[in-house]
């Protein structure tokens, strides 16, 4: 188990990580979602010992490793650009940690070779031992980099945007593969990414990092269904955000009127998931009492299993609606067609003046 306590780090007085506390459990897949510039790479570098934190402590088990040099930490980092040694073969790269580490290196070359073969088998690279790393593909490089770290049996394996440089096809395969490899070894993966679907799909738990702060730490489905703040909702790329305010007991955002949930003092924003919105052609009426707004059709995007429709609201903002083709057939709208967008009150999330989610008493139905 690794614990980060009040970790802070800044560059030229520009804060990169602010008072971050976090527990990383044994044998879990933890993902960290953060937009670029949120401090996610800095956090990994601080954990690996490549940067010094200004405040806070890092505990590994019951040992304080905050000031321990990188090569004695027992953490492994898989860098975004793989950082393979260009003058070595695949085999030499993977065996590097075992043969050359300062603490209890494996001097028996046969033993190194055996474990290299074992690890290469795990990542599916048997047969490439003698290749130079310049002669293998991007996906294979990624696996070599992973194998090179895993062979040293790190207590926590830090992955810096491991799928970032792979093409879409390969990325999907590696998603499954990474989870499988992690399970087989029982090692903790701490996977940092800027891609929300990756963070949600892969993590047992996920952390949302924003401007150096962890703004939500929860299981992916919780994060997805109940984003803790407006900013989390925005990173998830699954919510339409309606900014507004309370006027005489009603939440008003443009033409939309919604009753203020009981117990809420002030509201700044409402969020409606892309797939919880009904599109009504002109003439059709929204259900009585259901919030509705008028918009014009802009474009649609066919994505295989779903279609995403883009509408422009009266105030110029965009509104997205998603239709899963397993539950309904795609609709076609003419460009500039006027429609009414409507949704059910139980699918709305409200955020208070600070941007924090207002937990409602009523149970949320699955949208």
């Amino acid at each position: 188990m690794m614990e980060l306590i009040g970790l802070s780090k800044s560059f030229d007085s520009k804060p990169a990580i602010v008072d971050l506390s976090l527990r990383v459990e044994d044998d879990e897949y933890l993902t960290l979602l953060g937009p670029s510039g949120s401090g996610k790479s800095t956090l990994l570098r601080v954990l690996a010992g490549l940067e010094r934190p200004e405040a806070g402590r890092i505990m590994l088990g019951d040992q304080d490793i905050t000031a321990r040099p990188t090569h004695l930490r027992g953490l492994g980092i898989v860098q975004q650009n793989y950082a393979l040694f260009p003058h070595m073969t695949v085999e030499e790269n993977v065996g590097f940690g075992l043969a050359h580490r300062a603490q209890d290196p494996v001097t028996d070359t046969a033993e190194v070779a055996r474990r290299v073969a074992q690890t290469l088998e795990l990542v599916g690279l048997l047969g490439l031992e003698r290749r130079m790393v310049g002669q293998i593909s991007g996906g294979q490089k990624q696996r070599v980099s992973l194998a090179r770290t895993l062979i040293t049996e790190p207590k926590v394996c830090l992955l810096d945007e491991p799928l970032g440089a792979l093409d879409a096809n390969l990325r999907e395969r590696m998603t499954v593969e990474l989870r499988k490899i992690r399970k087989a070894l029982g090692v903790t993966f701490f996977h940092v990414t800027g891609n929300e679907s990756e963070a949600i799909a892969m993590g047992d738990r996920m952390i949302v990092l924003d401007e150096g702060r962890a703004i939500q730490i929860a299981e992916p489905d919780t994060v997805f269904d109940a984003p803790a703040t407006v900013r989390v909702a925005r990173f998830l790329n699954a919510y339409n955000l309606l900014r507004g305010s309370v006027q005489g007991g009603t939440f008003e955002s443009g033409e939309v009127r919604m009753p203020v949930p009981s117990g809420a003092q002030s509201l700044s924003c409402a969020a409606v998931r892309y797939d919880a919105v009904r599109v009504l052609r002109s003439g059709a009426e929204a259900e009585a009492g259901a919030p509705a707004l008028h918009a014009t059709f802009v474009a649609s995007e066919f994505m295989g299993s779903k279609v995403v429709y883009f509408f422009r609201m009266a105030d110029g903002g965009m509104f997205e609606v998603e239709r899963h083709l397993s539950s309904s057939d795609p609709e076609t709208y003419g460009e500039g067609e006027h429609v009414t967008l409507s949704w059910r009150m139980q699918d709305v999330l409200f955020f208070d003046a600070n941007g924090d989610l207002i937990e409602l008493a009523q149970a949320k139905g699955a949208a």
Partner: protein
Amino acid sequence: MATNNDSVAMGAPVAAPQESFWARNRHYLLLAPGVVWMVLFLVVPLLMMVYVSFWTQTTFAISSDLTIKSWQTFFASETYFGALLRTLRIWLTVLFFTFLIGYPTALFIGQFVRNKTLQTVLLVACVIPFWTSFLIRVLAWRPMLGKEGAVNIVLQGLGIIDQPIEVLLFTELSVIIGMVQIYVVFMVGPIAFMLARIDHSLIEAARDLGASAWTIFRTIIFPLSLPGVVVGAIFVSVMVLGEFATASALSGRKVNLLGNIIVTQVGSLKWAFAAVVGVILTAVMAVVITALLRVVNLRKEL
């Protein structure tokens, strides 16, 4: 239009019109000036040198009757064959010291100076001695190393020595000191260039995998800088092997290198003998460069 294009693309392959021989090969013309230049001023003189080395040399004249007498003289004479050995010895010593001084300097500039501008400034600083002429740089060592030179005065002033050190000037040592000072920068440049190209994330990865600083140097940094070392060594070797000026200026004509012999033989119009030494020098350089290139496959590494 579109269908028209399609049908052309789908049709039977049309034989490309044969370009004329002239059109296909005219890019080789780009080589012409270089080839003409090299043939006239390198290949022909080289062959000429080999040819002349077999001419018959008498005290006052030279004739084109072929003989191996000049070659026999070279290998039989203590003076001349000794000069070959001395040249090799000084070359190896200078190479060793330029590496010993150059590598740490390059390591500092290439790996520990992270600012690219500062790196360039430091490398330019290494070349500052070249702003003065070669002769001045060499001769400046005389007032430094002489019996009443700066080094002796300072050491005596500090009370470290009683008598001036005489071995400093007009010896093999002064030649070596002079050459190392002049040529060390040719070692620093290429090595610093290679070191600066090493991706810092490789070093971080190695550290993360548990390697100590020395292990990282031994297994990552040094092997990756080896092409720079080889290029630097080639620069230094080519220049030192053909040297004569430093040796004659700083040794008081006591240390004769192959270069010095060529100068004196040409001076006394002994062309055949000078040609023998020239051929030997060229052969030595060829062997040295080939051997150095064997160390690293430069084509692959650069």
